[in-house]
């Protein structure tokens, strides 16, 4: 997904000379074609995220469209105030391409695990937050990033993720995608958890339970209407995300459900990383399994909640 996103930066830079790529001390071959062909649109800066974010805001205020790439944790935590004030408050057209969203960097430990990025950035007015499911969807969404006003955060997966997005259901920034429809339960997912949600929906179907799957590739602005309307049709709602359950997708859906005053109320549960620092290394898959971010657990939760409904 990272390769696709950077390939897209090259494509966008070719077609629009306002596009400037800014790396924060990335690998030596990063976008070397862009550097060779359009040296004025390629910047490689030092390890200095605070300066890079505000400098990018300055470039954007002069008409550029900077795309910044580094590891997600460094691009959100260290420079959070710069994001709030210099991207959010100034409403600057800066794009944050965040490598290793979620637990992609499991072997590297908790300093590199971006399990709170969505929570952090949800609080920033004017911010758009994207979490594509796979490389194809990354391509569709990146093409739209030239036109959106204000800052955008793009959460990257590991790369080589199975393609589960569909040409016939193309992502449009701000619009959730109903990937499948069923009247018994609603699964709301984001990012690569779409593959988990679809697998669980398949399992549930075999057991006679029809689940809708709503893919929220844009976490902000959130497609409140789609979440509300699809929740209204079912008794059970479950969210799943590769992210802390604190203030991520699950919390956002809970806010909508709570304020909707459904009667009878919906049976609801969040699946995600609990309020802990992950305590193991291993792989993205092994950490997701450790915290039950799996199709098996999702299937089980849907069934449990249905058992509790009248």
């Amino acid at each position, binding site marked *: 997904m990272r390769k696709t996103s950077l390939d897209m930066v090259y494509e966008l830079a070719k077609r629009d000379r306002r596009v400037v790529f800014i790396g924060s001390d990335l690998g030596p071959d990063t976008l070397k074609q862009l550097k060779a062909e359009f040296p*004025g649109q390629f*910047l490689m*800066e*030092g390890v*200095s995220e*605070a*300066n890079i*974010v*505000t*400098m*990018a*805001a*300055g*470039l*954007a*205020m*002069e*008409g*550029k469209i900077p795309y910044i790439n580094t590891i997600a944790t460094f691009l959100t935590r260290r420079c959070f*105030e*710069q994001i709030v*004030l*210099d991207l959010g*408050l*100034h409403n600057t057209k800066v794009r944050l391409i965040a490598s290793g969203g979620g637990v992609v960097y499991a072997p590297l430990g908790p300093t590199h695990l971006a399990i709170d990025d969505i929570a952090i950035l949800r609080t920033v007015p004017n911010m758009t937050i994207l979490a594509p499911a796979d490389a194809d969807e990354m391509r569709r969404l990146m093409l739209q990033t030239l036109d959106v006003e204000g800052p955008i955060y793009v959460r990257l997966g590991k790369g080589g993720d199975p393609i589960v997005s569909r040409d016939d259901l193309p992502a449009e920034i701000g619009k959730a995608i109903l990937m499948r429809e069923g009247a018994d339960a609603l699964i709301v997912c984001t990012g690569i958890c779409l593959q988990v949600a679809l697998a669980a929906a398949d399992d549930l179907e075999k057991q006679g339970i029809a689940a809708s799957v709503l893919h929220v590739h844009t976490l902000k602005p959130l497609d409140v209407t789609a979440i509300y309307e699809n929740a209204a049709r079912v008794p059970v709602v479950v969210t799943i995300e590769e992210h802390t359950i604190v203030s991520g997708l699950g919390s956002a859906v809970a806010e909508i459900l709570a304020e909707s005053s459904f009667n009878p109320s919906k049976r609801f549960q969040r699946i995600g990383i609990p309020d802990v620092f992950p305590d193991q290394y291993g792989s993205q898959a092994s950490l997701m399994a450790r915290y039950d971010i799996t199709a098996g657990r999702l299937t089980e939760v849907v069934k449990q909640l249905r058992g509790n409904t009248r």
Partner: protein
Amino acid sequence: MTTAFSPTTPDDLALDARSRALRKMIVRTIEAGKRGHVGAAFSVMEILRVLYDDILKVDPANPRWTERDRCILSKGHGCIALYVLLAEKGFFPESELWKFCASDGILGGHPEYGKVPGVEASTGSLGHGLSFGVGFALNAKLEGQKHRVFVVVGDGECSEGSIWEAALCAAQHKLSQLTVLIDYNKQQTYGTIAEVQGLEPLADKWASFGFAVREVNGHDVDALRAVLSEMPFHPSKPGALICHTVKGKGTGLTERNLSWHHKARVSEAEVASLFASLDDE
């Protein structure tokens, strides 16, 4: 190498009529808002006065004129000095000054981009302005534009790590169109810079970060005019101008008086005292 600095000290220098008049406008603004960062505004007054009177190419009728020089007040708490100059130059009506910090005004306790004509970036949280300036100057360099970028930072602000990240970046890109002006009044909120977190040798620090450094008495308008007319200080280095100043410069009540760093509920008696002091000087 840095240049030696041995002019008259900022304490000795008597303010001219214009500097006193500008400070009276600051006091009138504070009287209207009943609050304000007086020490910083009085400290930075001559730096901004010389920039706006003699150095900056700006057009008050067209604040976003693309060829304008950019000036960022990174120490945003000094904003009342900026506001009185912008009002005088015609960026917005003087009447806005009398709505300082009011709910229906455009002028807050820190300056806002997009709200105040002539303000190039929202500042108030320290350590952001120089990075904005790097972005502006880098864009100018990439596009072959000739305008210049000035960033006024505080001395206390130089404790922020982002200042030095920005300094490394400016030097790396050889941004000779960028000048940082340090309002070096040697005081911060709690006490002196030396006792809270020392900056010396400050000129050597900026020089070692790749800047061409000059020093000046930051209240001496002739000296400021002369040194800023030498811009750029170096053909391939960003400039740093260390302006030696006195916090609260201009009245006996405010000079080096920590209680006037930020003052809320300013009384009529205090306002009268400030006006009287500015008449006497």
